[in-house]
């Protein structure tokens, strides 16, 4: 059962979007922690 071109594109596309969001989320959390003085 060969994966379709569309499914393949979706798989990679969704993964890519999540990976693009990741650094933004991490930086946001860092700033929030820093402001609260709860970095480490």
């Amino acid at each position, binding site marked *: *059962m*060969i*994966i379709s*071109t569309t499914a*393949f*594109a979706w*798989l*990679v596309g*969704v*993964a*890519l979007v*999540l*990976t*693009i969001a*990741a*650094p933004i*989320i*991490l*930086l946001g*959390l*860092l*700033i*929030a*922690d*820093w402001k609260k003085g*709860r*970095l*480490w």
Partner: protein
Amino acid sequence: MNIVNTAILDPTTGWLILAAFSALWIALGWYFGRNTQQLDDYVLAGRRVGLALGTATIMATWVTSNTTMAAPQLALQMGVWGMIGYSLGSVGLLMFAPLARRIRRLMPSGYTSGDFVRLRYGNFAWRVFLLISLFYSLGWLVSMGMAGGILIHALTGIPYHYGMTVILSICVGYTLLGGLRAVIGTDFIQALLILSGAVIIAVLAIRQIGLDTIHAAVLAERPELLNLLMPASIMFLFNNLLFGVGEIFHSNVWWSRAFAFREGVGFRACLLAGLLWAPIPIVAGFIALATPALGLNVPAADMVGPMVAAQILGTTGAVLVLIMVFAALSSSLDSLLAATSILVVEDIYRRHLKPEATAVQMRRATARIIVGLGILTWILCAPRLTTLAELLYFTGAFVASTIWPVAAGLFWRRANSAGAIAGMILGSAAGLYSYFAVGFYVAALVGAAVSMTLVIAASFLKPERFDFGNLQEIHPRESKPVSGGL
């Protein structure tokens, strides 16, 4: 095995990049490591790490060179399910979230996973567990060291032994300087580098070749890679999931973070890190499937990632990959060095050799052991014995056999030592047998299944009634003991 005759970068560029980042990590290691004279500051970053740094360190540590190099390798060998199966390694992180919370709560002054097994199951189980844990740690260290040498050679032509030596020395250097704070601080930056690198390479690959072209070319040349019913890949799925769970549940790399995080952080950090990590093997892995579309020859499976990136993106791509994988390697190596050294110091040095060791002595011993581990790793990396994925999966049988002893030990009062010991020993044996009899892609699954059965059986045959309050222990003394109490 120097079978690559065409490296994209020249050695000089390679050396420059390595030197620049090495200087950066060492400088940061020194900076973050100020005020880490106290044992708990050095080995557990003061036990107050917050959510942002906590999430980033977990994510970055779990992104190893394996994620960036073995994921493409598995995509090339096992196809689509190979890639997705690799992503299932995130389940270990997700499932560890409740464990991290419970560990912090039950053992607020704990240092290692070894401490837990000793207190929960007694000395024999503890020693079996230590054997497995140290074997795995060494295996992971060696796979990182080897990956460094292989990657640098593939991209720049710099000989394997030089690249391997540089990476090991730099990581030992800054971990030594700053302890777990240096590790966690640099991990945050390394996390950003890893994510950015993966995104840039993937986006450029898609723009240059196109997903449809990739799909069509693979279908023509390597059709089974797109087969969702490819038997070996299906067998691989839960094997990889359980392997990841086993790695995370038992390893002091994750337990040390559970101890190092501020209370309340562990659960969310693990969940978030798991979710952020999950797509990375797919983003990194799918480029291996571009080899038919590119008409690229892959001499050895563990080189496919960097080779494809370099082919698609030329010099820029090669530089990106070098930076990204250097970051991935460093962020895992530093964690491993720190966590393994405290495991050795607490569970071997203090508990076996010097029970009266003070915190100061333990801190000093930790530093020495970090160096010692670096040297040992170097010696084991030098002969370059096997491909990366296989080396790591060899440990799969062993670590997966610890899942139930650890999880049941934490959550189930009736779990007893006999079950834990039998689970670890027989689970490992069964897994090891299936590694050779069937393939590397079933060893962890078999180990986990056998171990689980034994732990459950023993817990019903002779249920224990463990008091979890027994897991609390006191700190080592700050200075030489005076006669009498603390």
